[in-house]
């Protein structure tokens, strides 16, 4: 079964930033979270996938098809949600739908009406009258009303309060109950990814740091806390990053076994969360 999204050695050069051989794969039926600090290249990658930017090198396959050679067919089968609202502010919800619907082969008015009812979106409101959260829900209603197999979202929850973010996560989990659907979404709010993602891809400075199952990433790393005296130069080798305070040190390691061996009972090793992991990896790059 072909993966639903496959990016291989994707490259793009800008004046002061470049995407370097970005590669990752998403299989059907899963959610992948795409995390990274601001400016890491998340939006650029998504725009390249959507062919809004043209790539300098590499390959992008969606639903097994090349994203440029089969652009129209691919776009018929995917849904998109962007961080900013790109719909016409002057049009009403109903008018906007009337403009978009005919372009999709599998559009369902029934599905759309069900969603706007569930999301409480009045069809006669102008887009500009909708709050940020409602605009995002409108995007989702549109994205879900044409039987999209892959949902691509670029920071869909930026600027939204925790309640709406939670609602969005519920919607995504509900979508994923159908094992034929997949979701790819970028965010810098790692707690959202922790709640629902199956896979995590972490990008920093235009390069992929890791891409694997979320639980595996968390299990693989350990957050170590201990007394400063125990920080030998041999120990430091096993850390991705270390924070030192007057009261001790805290560090992230990918090698729990070795660290345990060296520290024995002297330190505490805890399960890190994605935010810890992201912070330590980005700090490490800064130091290097």
């Amino acid at each position: 079964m072909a993966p639903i999204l496959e990016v291989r050695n994707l490259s793009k050069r800008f004046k002061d930033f470049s995407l370097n051989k970005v590669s990752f794969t998403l299989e059907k039926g899963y959610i992948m979270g795409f995390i990274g600090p601001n400016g890491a290249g998340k939006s650029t990658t998504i725009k390249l996938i959507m062919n809004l930017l043209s790539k300098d090198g590499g390959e992008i396959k969606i639903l097994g098809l090349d994203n440029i050679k089969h652009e129209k067919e691919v776009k018929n089968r995917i849904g998109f949600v962007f961080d900013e609202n790109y719909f016409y502010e002057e049009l009403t919800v109903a008018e906007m739908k009337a403009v978009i619907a005919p372009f999709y082969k599998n559009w369902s008015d029934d599905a759309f009406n069900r969603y706007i009812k569930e999301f409480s979106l009045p069809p006669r409101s102008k887009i500009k009258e909708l709050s940020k959260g409602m605009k995002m829900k409108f995007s989702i209603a549109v994205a879900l009303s044409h039987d999209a197999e892959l949902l691509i979202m670029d920071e869909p929850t930026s600027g939204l309060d925790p309640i709406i973010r939670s609602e969005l996560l519920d919607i995504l989990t509900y979508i994923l109950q159908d094992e034929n659907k997949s979701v790819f979404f970028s965010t810098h709010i790692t707690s959202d990814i922790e709640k629902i993602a199956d896979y995590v891809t972490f990008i920093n400075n235009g390069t992929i740091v890791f891409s694997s199952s979320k639980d595996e990433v968390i299990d693989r790393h350990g957050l170590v806390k201990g007394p400063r005296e125990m920080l030998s130069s041999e120990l430091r080798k096993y850390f991705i990053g270390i924070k030192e305070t007057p009261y001790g040190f805290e560090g992230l390691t990918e090698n729990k076994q070795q660290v345990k061996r060296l520290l024995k009972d002297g330190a505490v090793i805890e399960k890190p969360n994605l935010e810890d992991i992201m912070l330590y990896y980005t700090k490490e790059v800064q130091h290097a």
Partner: protein
Amino acid sequence: MNIIISNSSQEAIYEQIVRQIKNMIIRGELAENEMLPSIRSLARDLQISVITTKKAYEELEKDGYIVTVQGKGSFVAAQNKEILREMRLKIVEEKLAEAVDAGRSIELSLEEMQEMLKILYEEA
């Protein structure tokens, strides 16, 4: 069916699920041929990844506790009654051993322990 996941425990999440479902089957809380929730709905309700629930079910199937039928779902496997009874006996034995240790540490005699056992048995 009660499954409680601890995020802060050292035990991997899928192991927690495997352990709890195994115990429910052994204790008879999950009957033979009873259908388990789908890996996706379980993932949704526990707010964990479907990869984890899938891994848990795969392990349970490998150890013979459940059977997964393609397209239908996962079901508690017909447990070998003898083995189940033996496992249950083992649990009773372990608990009795604990009680014996506890009694010994305050120098309780065998007769006093038997008396306590009789009272507790009749109370239950």
